């Protein structure tokens, strides 16, 4: 496996943050693993036993060819088979906004994993707010590059909304960071103040209460 494949700097910035939260040797499930960049990085640098799930035949085949454990399928159905606490960490990166039943899914993920890490685009970022306020249009940004008629995103979430939601369903936040990304999301920085206004993504590590 060549280093270019698994170097941290070429990975999406939210995945870089997520990787830094995962302890060496953990059992990890990556939902919507795409080309397997996170799994390959974790396998090589953290000796993680990882599994990925993705819907695309091409992406799954690419992952298996590079030596990763990956299943082709709809992860909302696939996760049901796993026994309780099968994984130390379940990762759901940039997919939450496309889930029909986020409550049921998160609770199921917290059953099969001791902890769940989610990252999601923050719809309350100032550029979204400005577009609605000044142009009166549904926001289109680097993180949310779709028009209303072709977006796969069916949930509009902000960091503040998500906190309320977690409180309502009784899930604890173990760790949280808000990030501001640029350069096609490959680079970024942590946002400490006015997160819900300034961050493009929220990332949280969750566990059962």
């Amino acid at each position, binding site marked *: 496996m060549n280093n270019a494949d698994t170097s941290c700097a070429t990975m999406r910035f939210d995945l870089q943050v997520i990787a830094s939260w995962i302890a060496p040797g953990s059992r990890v499930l990556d939902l919507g693993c795409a080309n397997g960049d996170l799994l390959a990085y974790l396998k090589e640098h953290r000796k993680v*036993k990882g*599994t990925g799930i993705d819907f695309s*035949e091409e992406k*799954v*085949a690419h992952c*298996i*060819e*590079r*030596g*990763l*454990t*990956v*299943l*082709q*399928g709809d992860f909302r159905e*696939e996760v049901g*088979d*796993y*026994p309780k606490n*099968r994984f130390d960490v379940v990762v759901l990166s940039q997919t939450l906004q496309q889930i029909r039943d986020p409550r049921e899914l998160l609770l199921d993920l917290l059953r099969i994993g001791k902890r769940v890490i989610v990252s999601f685009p923050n719809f309350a970022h100032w550029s979204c707010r400005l577009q609605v306020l000044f142009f009166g249009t549904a926001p289109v940004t680097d993180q949310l590059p779709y028009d209303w008629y072709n977006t796969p995103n069916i949930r509009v979430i902000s960091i503040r909304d998500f906190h309320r939601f977690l409180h309502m369903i009784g899930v604890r936040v173990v760790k949280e960071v808000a990030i501001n990304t640029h350069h096609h999301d490959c680079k970024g920085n942590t946002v400490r103040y006015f997160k819900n206004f300034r961050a493009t993504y929220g990332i949280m590590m969750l566990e059962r209460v």
Partner: protein
Amino acid sequence: MVTSTDNNKRKTLVERQYYTFAHPPDEMVLDCGEKLGPITLAYETWGTLNAQKNNAILIHHAFSGDSHVAGYLKEEDERPGWWDNMVGPDKPIDTNKYFVICSNILGSCVGSTGPSSPHPVTGKPYGLSFPMVTIKDMVRAQKELIDHLGIKKLLSVIGGSVGGMQVLRWCVEYPEMVHSAIPLATTLRHSAQAIAFNEVARQAIMADPDWNQGDYYNGSGPTHGLAVARMIGHVTYLSDDAMREKFGRRLYRDTLSFGFDSDFQVESYLHHQGKKFVDRFDANSLLYITKAADYFDLARGDGSMLVNEGLANVTFLVVSFSSDWLYPTYQSKALVSVLKKNGSDVSFCEVEAQGGHDAFLLPNERLNGLINGFLDRVYDEQC
């Protein structure tokens, strides 16, 4: 001619070998309770077993296959083995790196003991006095061969269709001897549809008067019944798409015959396949092997036999093919679902392919990449 010499030089020659065991009084006790012995398995090997003996891969052929996976048995042979596109030097299952073994299954007719073999007492072919064998019996016989070769643990067991059933049986019976497994285009239990097709094939043979209750070895045998059985098989190996693409309604002759000779290319294709099969396969072997496939059910009773602690250490790559309607993708997914519950490391991919069930045998870059990448990985993990 220079070219033909060059061609011949490039041919990888392989020798068919034989291993005989279970000599009386130590016959093998089969699933059905009867004893069978001596048992001979025909097998071939490619590559070299390394000093640690940890680079061995056992390939299982499908129901009508044989031990001749790759290369040529004789210089003058025109066609290589049945999976030559997959197995060989620098091929996806690279014989420069791995030691590959394949044996003809118990009950078959291509060198291993089966209904056409001579009965040890009478010297005449067994015919229907050959005991019923199961996939488990086939695998137990293969285990004798692997022990004989001095291999304690197989790097991988690989097979499609009935070969995939053997892969799964190996995992259930000898999980400690299996590092990884690649079941292709297969199922953990034979479906009603698959049993139905097999039964029609068997009836075609048994309805042929020349079958003579299986006692036909001094005559031509049930050639017509066997050809029809094969024609049915080939229908199930293709797909609606594959047939439309391959034949459509194209005619075999210039105009319609207004009779019952072959008019369409698809008819002549099936006739050709039937005829070819009669020349190389024994009708009784077809009866026995299809029955073994029909009996195959790893989910019998309440729990699955694949739920087994030992299996948690086996790494799986399960592959199905989108147009396979004999062992459709949902059956591979059911297998994956059980393996996940077990805690096994399991990867799964449904390969987009038009070829129907036959797709696993046809050249396919995606399948090549999957198998090659997976084997690289399990080899690195083990070594």
